[in-house]
């Protein structure tokens, strides 16, 4: 049976995978759902490890980057980004 990828992006409060979720995003390659900005008020998991326990596979974690001279205190993008995936069986004939 063919498979499609579902992607979960969790932004955590630190580099530890068991730290709390502060932001999140979903993308659904099956086309069954159309997640969008602002569509949820509560995170899907309390932390990254809870996502692992629910079958999500961690495929990327943001590295820790040394702060550049003069940029030590500048804030911008969320730092602790973790990409997860699930491969989901789909029925192409359905």
């Amino acid at each position, binding site marked *: 049976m063919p498979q499609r990828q579902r992607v979960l*992006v969790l*932004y*955590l*409060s*630190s580099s530890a995978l068991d*730290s709390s*979720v*502060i*932001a*999140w*995003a*979903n993308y659904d390659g099956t086309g069954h759902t*159309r*997640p*969008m*900005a*602002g*569509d*949820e*008020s509560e*995170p899907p998991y309390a932390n990254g490890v809870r996502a692992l326990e629910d079958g999500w596979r961690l495929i990327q974690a943001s590295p820790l980057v040394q702060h550049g001279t003069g940029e030590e*205190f*500048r*804030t*911008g*993008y*969320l*730092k*602790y980004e973790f990409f997860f995936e699930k491969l989901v069986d789909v029925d192409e004939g359905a």
Partner: protein
Amino acid sequence: MSGSHLLTTNQMAHFAASGFLRFDAVVPEPLNQAFLEEIGHSDEVTDIGGHYRRIMHSSAIPLVPAGTPLEEAYPEHSALARIMKLPVVAGAVRSLVGSHPVVDHHFLHITFPPRLTGRPLPSQHTHQDSTIDPRRAFDVQIMYFPHEVTPEMGGTRFVPGTHLRIVSEAAIARYQNIAGQQHMVCPAGTLLFVHHGIWHGGGANRSDRMRYMFKIRLCPTERQCRLWNTSDLDTRSPQKPIFWVGDALGRRDPDDVHTILTEPSPWFEADTGRLEYLNRIRFWRYLSGDDEFDADYWVTRIENEY
């Protein structure tokens, strides 16, 4: 400076910390109705493009060249001119961007319901307006909601406390949901004043009605220092015990500027949340003109160099 309709120190501190001030139902209903009539609102709209073109070409919203003084932007007696002259509005504008701000741009955002678009349209990605903007000076954007906005109508979404982050416009589109995000669900006549840097996006309209939001971006033409009602500003900024606080544990004065500037937002990361305190404190130094202001010693500690 003093004045009854200028912002208070408490309000300014909340703006410094969170990047927004909300004023519910401050525009009287007759003025809301006048605005909707002037733009040509109709419940009978069937053609989206035609409705936008009609409003763009024939409404009372003037074409305003960038840099036009606010006081010259809107025809006298127009709904917009009268709204901008409401004491609460004029006081907030003066407190934030001074006595002679200029218009950067304005725009009437219309979010059409599925009955007109043919299918539910998604919400707008999270973004920061304009482009990378590392200034300490700031513009304000006034969002005017001329009618009630229900949860189904998808009012503007924004994330309090993000305004001091330096990012590049749509680069943050990936952030679908952020802890602490707010959706504008409000009565008619509500105004939302936001710092230009706040992360936001339009919501999806799931109702059967059109949603209007008129936005004006104003730029200061003067240094934004002590423009609000500073009669209650405590310039001594006394430091307090930190961490080991004795009986004060859990009993911080919620109206103290120190407390307001060091209240974490729900989305704060463990380490960069502290950098946001630095951002806020430095922003408050800019606003207050007090280069020695500090809260919980965050900036003093890292400036202690010999």
